[in-house]
C-alpha cells in the first residue's frame, strides 16, 4: 500500500472527524451546561437540513439556508426548552432524556407529513462543486469548506466561552447553578440560550451535511448514535473531549475503511468499549 493512499486516507479521516465533531458539539454543550441528554439531537439535525433546504429554495441561495436555518431551528430549540424541558428541572435526570426521545418520534413523523418520506435533493452550491488536488489525491471542495466551517465554529465557541461575560456565566453556571442564584443571575435565561445554541449547532450540522448525504427523515438516527459515541469517548460535557474524540473516531474509521472496510462502523463502537474499559469517564471527562 503506497504512502500517498495512506496520507489521503488520513486526510479523509480528519475531514470525516470534523463532521463528527460538528454533530457531537451541540449534544455535548447542552449536556455540559444543563445536564440534559438531548435524544432529539439527531431529529433536530434532520429538521435543520430540511429547514436549510426550505430556506434555500425560498431565497434561491444556499448561503441564506446556511445562516437562517440554524437560527430558526435554534429558536425552535428555545421553545422546546421553555415549554418542554423546563418543567422537568428538579425531577429525575432521566426525564429530559425520555421526553426528547418521544419528541424525536414527533419530529421525524412531522417532517414525513410535511415533506414526504422519500427524501429531497439538496444540491451542492455551484461555487463549491468540484474537486481539488491535494497532491496526494483529489478531495471535494465542499468537504474542505465544511472542515473550515467546523474550525470556525470551534474557534468562535472557544472565544465565546472563554473571553466573554456570557461565557463566564455559562461556565460558572455549569459548575454551580445555586451559586448563580445567590449572585442574582437568572440562570434560566442562560439555560434557554445554551439549549438554543446546542440545537442551532445540531441544525447547522444538518444543513452542512445536506449536500454531502441525502436529505431524508431518517438521516438523524445514525447521527445520534455517532454523536453519542463521540461524546462518550471524549467525556460527557467536555468540549475539548468532543473535538479530540471526533477527530480520533474519524481517523480510526478511515484507517479501518482502508484495511477492513466492512468493519468501518463497528470499529467506532468497539473503540468506545475499549475507552470505557480503561477510562469509564471518557478521555476528558471528570469522575462523577
Amino acid at each position, binding site marked *: 500500500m503506497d504512502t500517498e493512499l495512506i496520507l489521503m486516507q488520513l486526510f479523509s479521516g480528519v475531514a470525516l472527524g470534523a463532521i463528527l465533531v460538528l454533530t457531537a458539539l451541540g449534544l455535548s454543550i447542552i*449536556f455540559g451546561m444543563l*445536564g440534559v*441528554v438531548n435524544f432529539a439531537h439527531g431529529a433536530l439535525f434532520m429538521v435543520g437540513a430540511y429547514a436549510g433546504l426550505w430556506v434555500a429554495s425560498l431565497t434561491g441561495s444556499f448561503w441564506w439556508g446556511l445562516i437562517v436555518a440554524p437560527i430558526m431551528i435554534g429558536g425552535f430549540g428555545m421553545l422546546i426548552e421553555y415549554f*418542554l424541558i423546563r*418543567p*422537568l428541572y428538579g*425531577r*429525575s*435526570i*432521566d*426525564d429530559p*432524556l*425520555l*421526553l426528547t*426521545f*418521544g*419528541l*424525536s*418520534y*414527533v419530529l*421525524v*413523523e*412531522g417532517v*414525513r*407529513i410535511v415533506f414526504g418520506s422519500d427524501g429531497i435533493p439538496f444540491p451542492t452550491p455551484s461555487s463549491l462543486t468540484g474537486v481539488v488536488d491535494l497532491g496526494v489525491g483529489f478531495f471535494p471542495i465542499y468537504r474542505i469548506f465544511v472542515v473550515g466551517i467546523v474550525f470556525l465554529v470551534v474557534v468562535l465557541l472557544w472565544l465565546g466561552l472563554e473571553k466573554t461575560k456570557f461565557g463566564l456565566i455559562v461556565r460558572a453556571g455549569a459548575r454551580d447553578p445555586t451559586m448563580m442564584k445567590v449572585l442574582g443571575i437568572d440562570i434560566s435565561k442562560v439555560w434557554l440560550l445554551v439549549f438554543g445554541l446546542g440545537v442551532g449547532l445540531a441544525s447547522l450540522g444538518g444543513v452542512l451535511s445536506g449536500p454531502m448525504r441525502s436529505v431524508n427523515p431518517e438521516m438523524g*438516527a445514525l447521527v445520534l*448514535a455517532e454523536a*453519542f*459515541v463521540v*461524546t*462518550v469517548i471524549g467525556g*460527557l460535557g467536555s468540549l475539548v473531549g468532543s473535538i479530540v474524540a471526533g477527530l480520533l473516531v474519524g481517523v480510526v474509521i478511515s484507517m479501518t475503511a482502508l484495511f477492513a472496510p*466492512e*468493519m468501518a*462502523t*463497528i470499529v467506532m*463502537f*468497539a473503540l*468506545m*468499549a475499549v475507552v*470505557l*474499559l480503561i477510562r*469509564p*469517564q471518557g478521555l476528558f471527562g471528570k469522575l*462523577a
Partner: protein
Amino acid sequence: MTSPALAAPSHARAGKRAQFRSLVTRYRVPLSILALCLLPWLLPSKALAVNVLIYGVIAVGYNLLFGYTGLLSFGHAAFVGAGAYITGIAIGQFGVPWYLAVLLGVVGGALLAFIMGALSTRTRGIYFSMVTLALAQLVYYVALQASAWTGGENGLRGFTVSKIELLGFEINFLDPVNKYYVLMMFAALALWIVSRILNSPFGAAIEAIRENERRARTCGYDVERTKLLAFTLSGTICALGGTMSALHLAFVPLDSLHYLSSGMIVMMTLLGGASSFFGPFIGALVFLVMEDVFSLWTSHWQIIVGSVFVLFVLFLPKGIWGTFLTKVMR
C-alpha cells in the same frame, strides 16, 4: 415541611387506599394470571395478545432495573435479541428441543447481561444510559456481521416450532390459542419470579439504592455489585421474553437488537408506570393496542405515539397504573 399537615386530613381514605394496595400487592401474581387468561378474548387478535404477553414480560423485566433500581438502560434490546437469537439458532441449526432452546436462550441472555452490566454499572447517571445504548449497538453490529449464524440483515429463520409435547400431550403450536396459553405459562413464571425478587431483601436493597445510593453504600451495600445483580436479573427476564418472541414469530429480525427497540421497551414501561408491578404490563398492552389501532387508521401513527409519550413524561410521569394508584385511589 408542609407535607405532614397536608397528609393528615386524608388519613382515613389513605388507610383504605393502603388496604387496597396491600391487597393488590399480595395477590398480584394470581391477579395477573387471571387477567392474562382473559386477554386473548378481549383483544382484536391472538397474535397481538401473544405480543402483549411477550412485551409485558420484557417490560416487567426491564422495570426491575429502571423502575426499582433507578437505572435507565437504553440497551435492553440486546438481551431480548440474545434470547431470541440463541433459541432460534439452537432449534434451527442444532436441532435442540424447544424447551432446552428456551433455557439456552435465557442463560445466554443472562450471560450477556452480566458482561454488559459489568461494563456499564461502573458508570453513573446519564452516562449509564449512553453506555448501555452504545454497547447494545455494538451487539447489533456484531449480529449484522455474523450473518452465517444470525442471518444478518435477512433475519434468523428456519426454526418454526409447529408442535410441542407437554406432559405427554402433543400440542399444535401453530394454533394461536394453544400458542398463547403455552407462552402464558412462561409469562406467569416470569411474573412470579419478579414478584418474589421484589418481595425479597434484595428487592428492598435495590429500592434503597434507587432512593439514595450514598446512604445505601453507607449502610453496607456493595452498590456496584447489587446493581450488577439487578442488571443481570433484569436482562435474564428480558431474554426470556426474547425466547418467547422467537417461538411466537419463528423469526428474529435484526431490528430487534436496535436501540429503537430498547426505546420502545422504555416507552412501554414508562407509559404503564415504572416502579409498580402491574405498570409495565399495562404499558405494553396500551402501547401495542395503540399501535395496532392507529396504524390501521393512519400511516403517521408514530406522531401520535410520540406525542402521547411526551405528554406522559410531562404530566403523568408515574404512568397509567402509577397515576391510578396515587390519584384515583385517593
